[in-house]
C-alpha cells in the first residue's frame, strides 16, 4: 500500500525541457510573453504629447537632473520679484525635506511622522552655533564647521529615535514618531528659554558665513538651495542604486524575506532614519540662516503635512518625484493661493480641466458648460432686478462676480449657507444616477463658484488647505502613484 495513488512513478527521465525549448514535448516558451512585454504596450498620451513623452523617456536620469538644475539657476534672471524669490526659497527647503523623507517613507517604508523634528533640530542647532545665545560672547562658528557638526549630530539623533522605534511598524511607528515630533515643539517652547528663546524663538542668527564671505541676499540663498538640492538628489540617486538602496527597498517590500536574504533589517532601518535626519537637518540649517530666526511653531505639524503632501503628490519612492511634488505643492500653496486672482485661476482652471478630462461625450460637456454659463447670467440678472444689495459686493471685485456670480452685500452668512448646501449637493452628486448627475452638475458648479467668490476667496488660509486637499484627491484618482512615481503593487499576489 502506498500513499502514492498510481504507484511509484516510472523511472523514465523527465523531458529535457531546458535543452530543447522548441521541442515538441517541452512546454511552449513565452506563454507569459504578453506580461513580459508590458513596457512596450504601455499607453502613451494621444497625438504629439505621446511623442514628447517618448522623447522624455529616452533622456536618462542624470541629464534630466542637470536640465532641472539649469532651469532652477536660470529662473531668477527671468525677473522674479522679492515675493516670488521667497516662495522659491520656501519651496526648495520643502523639496529638500521631501527628498530626505523619501528615504524613510518612500524607500524604507517607515511611516515617520516625527520627521519635521529633525528639520527643527537642524535649525535650532545652527541657531545656537551661530548666534549670541550661548555664553557671553555667543558662538559664531563658520558654516564649514557648523553645518557638518549639525548634520552629524542629526544623524545620531536619528539613530536615537530609531533605536526604540526599530521594532515598530505601521501604525505604531507612526504614532510614536508623531509623539517625538510634538515633544520637540514642546521642548523648544518650554525648556531653558534664555537659550532657546521659548515661544519667542531665536531671532539673531548669523547668515551662512565661510572664509570671510557672508550669504545675506535672498538670491544668494536661492542659488545655494538649488545647488544643495541638486547635489543631495545626485547623492541619493547613487545611494538608491547601491546595496544600501536595494536593502532599504527590500525591507520595505518584505522584512522577513529581506532578513532571510542576509539583510540586517534593524540596522538598515536605522540607517534610513539617520539618512533622513541628516537631509532634514541640512535643510534646517539653511532655513534658519535664511530666515535669521527660528520659532517653535515653524517646526510643527503644518510643515509636516506640506512635506508629506509634496512627497505623495510627486510619488513616494522617486527622488525626482519627491522634489517635483514638493515644488508644485509649495508654489501652489505659497505662491498662487495667497493671491486671490491667481487662486481664482487655479480654482476655475482645476474645475474646467476636471470637466474636460472626465465628462464624455463632448455634447454633454458642452451642454453642462453652456447651461452653467446661462444659469449664472440668468440668476445674476434676476437677483439684480429684485434687489440691488443682492449683488452689491460683486461690483468691486472681478468681472466674473460683477456679471455672473451673485455676491450679496454681506457675503459671509450667504456664503456659509452656500458652503453647507454645496457639500450636500456634492454628496448627492456622488449618489445619484448618471442622468441626474449631469443635471445636478450645473447648479453644483454655479454653487461652487458662489461659495468661492463669497467665502473662500476671503479666507485664503483655509482655502489653501482645502485646495491642496482637493488636488491630492484628484491626483489619487487620476494617478495614484504620483506625478513621477512608479505604480506599485501592495498586495502579495
Amino acid at each position, binding site marked *: 500500500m*502506498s500513499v502514492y495513488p498510481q504507484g*511509484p512513478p516510472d523511472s523514465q527521465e*523527465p523531458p529535457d525541457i531546458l535543452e530543447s525549448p522548441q521541442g515538441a514535448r517541452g512546454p511552449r516558451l513565452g506563454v*507569459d510573453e504578453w*506580461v513580459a512585454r508590458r513596457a512596450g504596450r504601455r499607453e502613451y498620451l494621444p497625438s504629439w504629447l505621446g511623442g514628447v513623452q517618448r522623447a522624455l523617456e529616452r533622456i536618462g536620469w542624470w541629464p534630466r537632473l542637470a536640465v532641472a538644475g539649469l532651469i532652477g539657476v536660470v529662473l531668477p534672471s527671468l525677473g522674479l520679484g522679492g515675493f516670488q524669490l521667497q516662495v522659491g526659497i520656501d519651496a526648495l527647503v520643502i523639496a529638500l525635506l521631501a527628498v530626505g523623507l523619501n528615504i524613510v517613507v518612500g524607500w524604507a517604508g517607515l511611516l515617520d511622522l516625527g520627521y519635521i523634528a529633525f528639520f527643527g533640530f537642524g535649525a535650532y542647532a545652527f541657531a545656537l552655533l551661530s548666534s549670541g545665545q550661548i555664553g557671553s560672547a555667543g558662538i559664531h562658528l563658520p558654516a564649514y564647521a557648523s553645518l557638518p557638526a549639525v548634520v552629524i549630530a542629526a544623524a545620531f539623533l536619528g539613530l536615537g529615535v530609531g533605536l526604540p522605534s526599530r521594532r515598530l511598524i505601521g501604525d505604531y511607528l507612526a504614532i510614536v514618531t508623531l509623539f517625538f515630533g510634538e515633544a520637540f515643539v514642546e521642548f523648544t517652547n518650554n525648556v531653558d528659554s534664555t537659550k532657546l528663546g521659548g515661544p519667542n524663538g531665536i531671532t539673531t542668527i548669523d547668515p551662512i558665513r565661510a572664509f570671510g564671505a557672508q550669504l545675506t541676499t535672498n538670491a544668494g540663498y536661492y542659488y545655494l538651495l538649488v545647488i544643495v538640492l541638486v547635489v543631495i538628489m545626485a547623492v541619493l540617486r547613487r545611494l538608491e542604486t547601491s546595496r544600501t538602496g536595494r536593502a532599504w527597498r527590500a525591507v520595505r517590500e518584505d522584512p522577513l524575506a529581506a532578513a*532571510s536574504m542576509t*539583510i540586517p533589517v534593524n540596522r538598515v532601518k536605522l540607517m534610513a532614519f539617520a539618512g533622513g535626519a541628516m537631509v532634514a537637518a541640512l535643510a534646517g540649517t539653511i532655513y534658519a540662516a535664511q530666515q535669521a530666526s527660528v520659532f517653535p511653531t515653524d517646526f510643527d505639524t503644518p510643515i509636516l503635512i506640506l512635506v508629506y503632501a509634496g512627497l505623495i503628490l510627486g510619488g513616494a519612492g522617486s527622488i525626482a518625484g519627491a522634489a517635483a511634488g514638493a515644488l508644485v505643492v509649495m508654489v501652489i500653496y505659497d505662491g498662487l493661493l495667497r493671491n486671490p486672482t491667481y487662486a481664482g485661476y487655479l480654482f476655475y482652471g482645476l474645475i474646467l480641466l476636471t470637466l474636460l478630462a472626465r465628462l464624455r461625450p463632448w455634447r454633454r460637456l458642452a451642454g453642462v458648460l453652456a447651461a452653467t454659463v446661462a444659469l449664472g447670467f440668468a440668476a445674476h440678472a434676476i437677483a439684480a432686478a429684485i434687489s440691488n444689495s443682492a449683488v452689491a459686493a460683486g461690483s468691486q471685485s472681478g468681472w466674473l462676480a460683477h456679471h455672473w456670480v451673485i455676491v450679496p452685500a454681506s457675503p459671509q452668512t450667504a456664503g456659509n449657507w452656500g458652503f453647507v448646501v454645496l457639500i450636500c449637493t456634492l454628496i448627492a452628486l456622488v449618489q445619484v444616477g448618471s442622468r441626474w448627475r449631469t443635471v445636478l452638475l450645473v447648479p453644483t458648479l454655479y454653487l461652487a463658484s458662489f461659495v468661492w467668490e463669497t467665502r473662500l476667496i476671503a479666507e485664503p488660509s483655509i482655502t489653501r488647505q482645502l485646495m491642496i486637499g482637493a488636488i491630492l484627491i484628484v491626483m489619487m484618482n487620476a494617478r495614484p502613484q504620483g506625478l513621477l512615481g512608479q505604480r506599485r503593487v501592495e498586495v*502579495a499576489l
Partner: protein
Amino acid sequence: MSQEPAREPVLALDHLSLSFGGLRALSELDLQVGDREIVSVIGPNGAGKTTVFNVITGVYPPNSGDVRFGGASIAGRPSHVIARLGIARTFQTLRLFQNMSVIENVMAATYGGTKATPAESILRLPRARREEREVRALAEEVLSFFGQRLAGYRWDQPAYSLSYANRRRLEIARALATRPRLLLLDEPAAGMNPAETHEITEVIGRLRDEREVAILVIEHDMHVVAGVSDRVVALDHGVKIAEGGFDAVASHPAVVEAYMGRHPEELAEEH
C-alpha cells in the same frame, strides 16, 4: 538512492522542540542533511514542516535542542546572520520584493556578502565599484541558471509582472545569490502545472550537481519527492514518524495513517 552520510552533516537538528503557547509544534526532532544531499520533508498540513524551516532560519528560536550548521550551533541567532553563514530559503507563499526589478531582487540578496559603506557607494570608490560589478555578474549568472525562463529582457521588469512559475524560479535565483551551502525549498512545485513540475524536479537535481548545495525540500507533489530525494523524512504533529528512502517512507504504516487518518490494515479490512 540513499547515501550514507560519510562526513559531518551540513545541517543537524538535535532534539529540537518548539511550542507556541500550549501547542507543541515540534518535539524532539532529529534531522541531518549531508553534504550535497537532497532530503525531502513530507507530512500532512500542519505537521510542522514550515516550522522546521522557520527554526532553522532563525525566525523562531527553539525552546530546546540545537541546530548545528557546519558543526557550529546556530540556534537562536538572527535570520540575516544565519543566511550569511550559508543557509538560504524560498517561501511557500512567495515573498519576492514585488516592486523591485528582477535583477534587483537577486542583487539585494548579496547585501551580507558585500561591504561597501553608503559613503563609498555615493563617492563610487573602488571597492564599491568592484562589488557592484561582481554583484551584477553574480546576479546575471544565477538568473541564467534558469535559461530562457528569466532571460535578459526580464531583468529590468518589476517582479510582480512575472508569471507565477517565474516568480518561483526567481525566488530560487534570489536564494542562490546568497551563495548558500544549504538551500531550503518550501514547496517549490506548489501551483505549478505538470510540465513546470517536471522542470522544477530537474532544477532541484541541477542545483545539487551544478551549484553544489545540500537541499532540504518540503513538497507535497510525490512525483517531485520521488524524483529528487536521497532521503525522505515524514513529520506528523511535529514528530518524525518515518525516515529513509522514498519507497520505504511512502508505504510506511505510520505515514499512511498520518495522511489517511487510519492504520492501513484497518483501511484494508473495510474494503
